[in-house]
C-alpha cells in the first residue's frame, strides 16, 4: 500500500502548546467552528495583535484532524470578522418590518423587550406559542435548545423552516431505529495517530453516495480524508447525478436519476444476495429480518432498476459486486438521501447494504460512534421538564416524533400554525443563526409571509440577513468563533474553542442563552456568570470516556487542544452498545434490524423501500409535459456555506453569481448559452441563475444552486437584497414531507427553463 507523503514543520513556528508569542502577535491553536462556517471544527492558528484583532489565520499543522490544511472560507475569516456589514450593538426595529430602520439599544434593553413579549405571549397562549429556530450544524445547537426548552419552556425547537428536517435528521433517525446508534465512515478519525494506528485498515472500496464531501464536509466529516485514502489505494464508486471530481476519479460512476437511490440500493442488495456475496456469519448472528429483505430486494432486478434509476444494469451489477467483495468497504453518504420524500426508505436500504456485507463497526467500514456527544451532555446540564412537551408541533402527525426519535418540532406544521392558528397560534419566533427564507425554507416567499404573522420576532445572527431585515423586531448581534469560549464535540476528537478576540458589543450564543434564561426561568439558570456556567458544564460531561486518567476540565482540554475518547471496533460483540451490557445492538431485538421493529411500531414501512418521486416524468406525465426537466438542488460550492459568505468580496470574486448546471444539448434546445441568465420555473415560482454548461448531466436534469441573496443590493423592501429573485426554493414544496414527517423532496422537483433577455444585475459593490 502507498503511504501518504509526510512533511515536517518548523517546531518553533508551529508548536504543541496551545498559545505562544511570535513577535507582536499572539498565536493560539484553536478550533474554528462557525460562524460563519460549516459543520467542521477545523484546527487553525489564530494570530492576534496587541488590540486583540485576528490579523491572520492559518491551518494548524499539529492538528491530527486536518494537519494544516484549510479551505478558502476559513482563510477569509478576518474579512468576515471585520466586514462592514458586522453589527456592533443590539437593534430595535424603528420603522415597519422590512424598512431596515433600526435603533441601537443596550443588551439590557433588548432582553427587557424579549422578556416582556415572551412572558405576555406565554401567559396568553402557553409557552408553546414560542418557536425557536436554528441553523445547521454549527455551535448554536445546545444553546438554542437551552433557550427553547429551558428559558422559554416551549417544546417547539426546530430548524429554520427546513421541510422534513431534511438535513441528516432522516438518516440519524433511520440509523437509531435500525441499528440503535449512528454510523459514520471510518477514516481513522477516532484515533490521534490516524492512518498510522495499527488497528486501522484502509478500505478497498468507498461508495460516495449523494454528496460531494470534498466541498460539503457534511455532518462532521472531512471530505479530503477520502482523498487521503484514495492516495493510499482506496477505489471509489460514486453515485451522483453530476460528475463530481470524485466521480471522475471513480472506478464506477453511477449517474442516478434524482430520488431513485432507494431502488438502486435494493437492486444492489438483490445482486449481492442472489450471487451469494453477503456475509453469512454477520447476517446469521447479528441481523434481523434477512428473509423479508431478500424478498423486498427481489422486487428490484437489474432491468427494473435500470429503468427506474437510468443507470445501465451492468454498472449497477459491477458496483454491487465490487462493493460486496471488497474487505473492508465503506459508504460516505449525504444530503441527497434526506432531500427526497422517501429518504427513510433509501437510507434503510443503504444501511442494509453495509450490514449484509459485514461492514458494520469494522476497521475501514462504517463504524458505530457512541462517543463525542458533548453537545448532548451539555443539554442534560439544562434538565428541565417542558410542561407542554406533548403538544410539540408535529407530534400528532408522527409517532416517530412523539416517541422522541426526532428532537425537532415539525416545520411543515409550524408554517400552517403561523398561517391559520391551527393546531394552535404561534405568536413569537426566536431565530438563532438561521436565514430561513434566503436559505432552506421551501416555498421561500410563503415562509416569509408566514413569519410576518408572528407578533414578535427575535433574530440573532452575525449580520443583518434578509430574514433579519424582513422580519425581526429585535436583532441580537452574535460573536464569531474566535470571540467565543467553548468546546466542540461531534464524533472525535473533543476540541477546545478559545476566545482570543472581542468584537464591539456582540455576545456569544451561550451568553445570550444564559442571559435570557436568568430572566425567564432563573431556577434553571443558577449561574451568575458565563464562566461559572462553563465550569459547571465542563465538570459534568457525562459520556466522555478517557483512558489516560486525567480529569476532564476546560483548562485540561485547552492545554491539550484535542482529546480523544476510547474507541473500540465491533462493539456489538463486546457488550458495549446496550444499557444491559449484553452483546448486540441497542435495538428491541438486539440485532441490526433489516426489518425494523421501531419503524413498524410507528406505523411506518418496516423494510427498506422505494417509491417513485412525485412529480416525475413517470408519476406525473401531464405535469412533466409542462415542466419537462428534473430539477435537483442543494449541491454546495467551495465559496459558500449555504446562504453565508455572499457578503465577502473575496468569495464573490471566485463565484459572483448563482449557477445552474445544464447539459449542452438541453441548452441548445432552449436557446441558452453558457453565461446566460436562465429563468427556472414551475407552478410554484421561479428563480434566475446563470447557465453553466455541464456535459456530464443527464440532458433531462438540471442542477441549481441554493442560498442566494445579494448583500450588495438594497436591504429594505421591496428589494430585500433580491432574496426572492435567484432563490431556488421558490420552486420547492414546504409541506410535502415523507410519511414520518421526515425528509422532503428538495432534490426531486420539475421545471422548465428559458433564457432571460437583457438582464444585467446590479454591480457587486461590496
Amino acid at each position, binding site marked *: 500500500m502507498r503511504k*501518504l*507523503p509526510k*512533511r515536517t*514543520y*518548523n517546531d*518553533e*513556528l508551529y508548536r504543541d502548546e496551545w498559545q505562544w508569542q511570535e513577535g507582536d502577535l499572539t498565536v493560539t491553536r484553536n478550533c474554528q467552528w462557525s460562524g460563519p462556517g460549516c459543520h467542521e471544527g477545523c484546527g487553525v492558528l489564530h494570530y492576534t495583535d496587541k488590540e486583540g484583532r485576528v490579523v491572520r489565520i*492559518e*491551518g494548524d*499543522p499539529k492538528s491530527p484532524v486536518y*494537519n*494544516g*490544511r*484549510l*479551505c*478558502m472560507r476559513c*482563510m*477569509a475569516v478576518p474579512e468576515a470578522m471585520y466586514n462592514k456589514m458586522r453589527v456592533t450593538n443590539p437593534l430595535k426595529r424603528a420603522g415597519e418590518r422590512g424598512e431596515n430602520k433600526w435603533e441601537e439599544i443596550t443588551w439590557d434593553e433588548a432582553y427587557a423587550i424579549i422578556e416582556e413579549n415572551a412572558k405576555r405571549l406565554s401567559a396568553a397562549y402557553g409557552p408553546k406559542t414560542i418557536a425557536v429556530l436554528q441553523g445547521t450544524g454549527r455551535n448554536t445547537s445546545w444553546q438554542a435548545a437551552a433557550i427553547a426548552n429551558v428559558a422559554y419552556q416551549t417544546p417547539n425547537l426546530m430548524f429554520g423552516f427546513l421541510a422534513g428536517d431534511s438535513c441528516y435528521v432522516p438518516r440519524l433517525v433511520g440509523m437509531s431505529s435500525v441499528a440503535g446508534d449512528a454510523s459514520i465512515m471510518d477514516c481513522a478519525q477516532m484515533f490521534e495517530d490516524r492512518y498510522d494506528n495499527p488497528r486501522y485498515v484502509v478500505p478497498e472500496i468507498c461508495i460516495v453516495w449523494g454528496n460531494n464531501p*470534498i*466541498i460539503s464536509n457534511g455532518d462532521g466529516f472531512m471530505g*479530503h480524508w477520502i*482523498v*487521503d485514502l*484514495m*492516495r493510499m489505494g482506496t477505489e471509489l464508486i460514486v453515485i451522483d447525478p453530476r*460528475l*463530481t*471530481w470524485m*466521480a*471522475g476519479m471513480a472506478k464506477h*460512476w453511477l449517474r442516478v436519476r434524482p430520488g431513485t437511490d432507494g431502488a438502486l440500493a435494493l437492486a444492489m442488495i438483490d445482486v449481492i444476495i442472489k450471487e451469494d456475496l453477503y456475509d453469512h456469519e454477520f447476517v446469521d448472528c447479528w441481523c434481523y429480518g434477512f428473509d423479508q429483505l431478500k424478498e423486498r430486494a427481489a422486487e428490484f432486478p437489474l432491468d427494473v432498476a435500470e429503468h427506474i434509476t437510468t443507470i445501465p444494469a451492468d*454498472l449497477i451489477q459491477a458496483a454491487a459486486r465490487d462493493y460486496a467483495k471488497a474487505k473492508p468497504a465503506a459508504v460516505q453518504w449525504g444530503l441527497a438521501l434526506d432531500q427526497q420524500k422517501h429518504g427513510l426508505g433509501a437510507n434503510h436500504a443503504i444501511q442494509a447494504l453495509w450490514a449484509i456485507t459485514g461492514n458494520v463497526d469494522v476497521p475501514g467500514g462504517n463504524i458505530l460512534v457512541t462517543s463525542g456527544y458533548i453537545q448532548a451532555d451539555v443539554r442534560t446540564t439544562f434538565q428541565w421538564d417542558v410542561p407542554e412537551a406533548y403538544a410539540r408541533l408535529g407530534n400528532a402527525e408522527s409517532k416517530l416524533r412523539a416517541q422522541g426519535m426526532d428532537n425537532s418540532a415539525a416545520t411543515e406544521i409550524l408554517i400552517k400554525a403561523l398561517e391559520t392558528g391551527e393546531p394552535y397560534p404561534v405568536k413569537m419566533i426566536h431565530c438563532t443563526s438561521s436565514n430561513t427564507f434566503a436559505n432552506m425554507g421551501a416555498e421561500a416567499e410563503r415562509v416569509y409571509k408566514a413569519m410576518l404573522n408572528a407578533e414578535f420576532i427575535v433574530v440573532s445572527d452575525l449580520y443583518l440577513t434578509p430574514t433579519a431585515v424582513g422580519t425581526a423586531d429585535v436583532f441580537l448581534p452574535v460573536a464569531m468563533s474566535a470571540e467565543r469560549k467553548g468546546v466542540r464535540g461531534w464524533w472525535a476528537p473533543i476540541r477546545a474553542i478559545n476566545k482570543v478576540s472581542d468584537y464591539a458589543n456582540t455576545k456569544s450564543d451561550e451568553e445570550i442563552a444564559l442571559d435570557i434564561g436568568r430572566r425567564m426561568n432563573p431556577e434553571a439558570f443558577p449561574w451568575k456568570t458565563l464562566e461559572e456556567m462553563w465550569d459547571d458544564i465542563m465538570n459534568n460531561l457525562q459520556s466522555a470516556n478517557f483512558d489516560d486518567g486525567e480529569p476532564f476540565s476546560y483548562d485540561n482540554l485547552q492545554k491539550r487542544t484535542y482529546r480523544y475518547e476510547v474507541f473500540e471496533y465491533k462493539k456489538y460483540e463486546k457488550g458495549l452498545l446496550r444499557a444491559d451490557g449484553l452483546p448486540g445492538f441497542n435495538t428491541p431485538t438486539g440485532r441490526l434490524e433489516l426489518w425494523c421493529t421501531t419503524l413498524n411500531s410507528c406505523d411506518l414501512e418496516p423494510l427498506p423501500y422505494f417509491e417513485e418521486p412525485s412529480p416525475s416524468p413517470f408519476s406525473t406525465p401531464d405535469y412533466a409535459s409542462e415542466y419537462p426537466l428534473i430539477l435537483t438542488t442543494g449541491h454546495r460550492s*467551495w*465559496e459558500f456555506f449555504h446562504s453565508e459568505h455572499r457578503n465577502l*468580496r*473575496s468569495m464573490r*470574486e*471566485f463565484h459572483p453569481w448563482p449557477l445552474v448546471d445544464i447539459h449542452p444539448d438541453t441548452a441548445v434546445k432552449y436557446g441558452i448559452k453558457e453565461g446566460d441568465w436562465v429563468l427556472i420555473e414551475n407552478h410554484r415560482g421561479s428563480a434566475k441563475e446563470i447557465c453553466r454548461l*455541464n*456535459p*456530464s448531466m443527464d440532458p433531462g436534469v438540471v442542477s441549481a444552486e441554493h442560498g442566494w441573496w445579494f448583500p450588495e443590493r438594497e436591504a429594505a423592501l421591496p428589494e430585500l437584497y433580491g432574496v426572492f429573485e435567484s432563490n431556488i426554493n421558490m420552486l420547492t414544496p414546504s409541506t410535502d414531507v415523507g410519511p414520518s414527517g421526515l425528509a422532503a423532496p428538495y432534490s426531486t422537483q420539475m421545471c422548465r427553463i428559458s433564457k432571460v433577455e437583457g438582464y444585467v444585475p446590479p454591480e457587486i459593490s461590496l
Partner: protein
Amino acid sequence: MNGLLIDYEFCTGCHSCEMACKVEHGFGEGQWGIELKQLGPREISSRKWEYKFVPVPTELCDLCADRVAEGRWPTCVHHCQAQVMEFGPVEDLVKTMDKEKMVLFVP
C-alpha cells in the same frame, strides 16, 4: 533553484492555494500568484471522464520568499487540502517524481 512539485492526479480543485496566495500577498481582484486550470468535464471514451485541475504559478509567484525565509512552507503548500504540493530544491523534488500525473514548476 527551488520549485513546486504538484501531484495533480489528486488535486481536487478546492481553490485553497489561490485564496491562500491572495491573502498572503494582499493581491487585489484579478491578481493571482497561482491560478487553477480546469480540464473537462468531458467524456474521453465510453464511461471514462476527464475532470481534473492543475494549479499553475503565475508571474507574481515568488514562492513565498518571505515565509520561506522565516522557516515556513509557501502558503499554497501549507494549506493545500489534498496535500499534493511540495516545495524544495528542484533536484530533490525530481527524485520524488515516482508516479504519473505530476508536474514540476520552477516559477
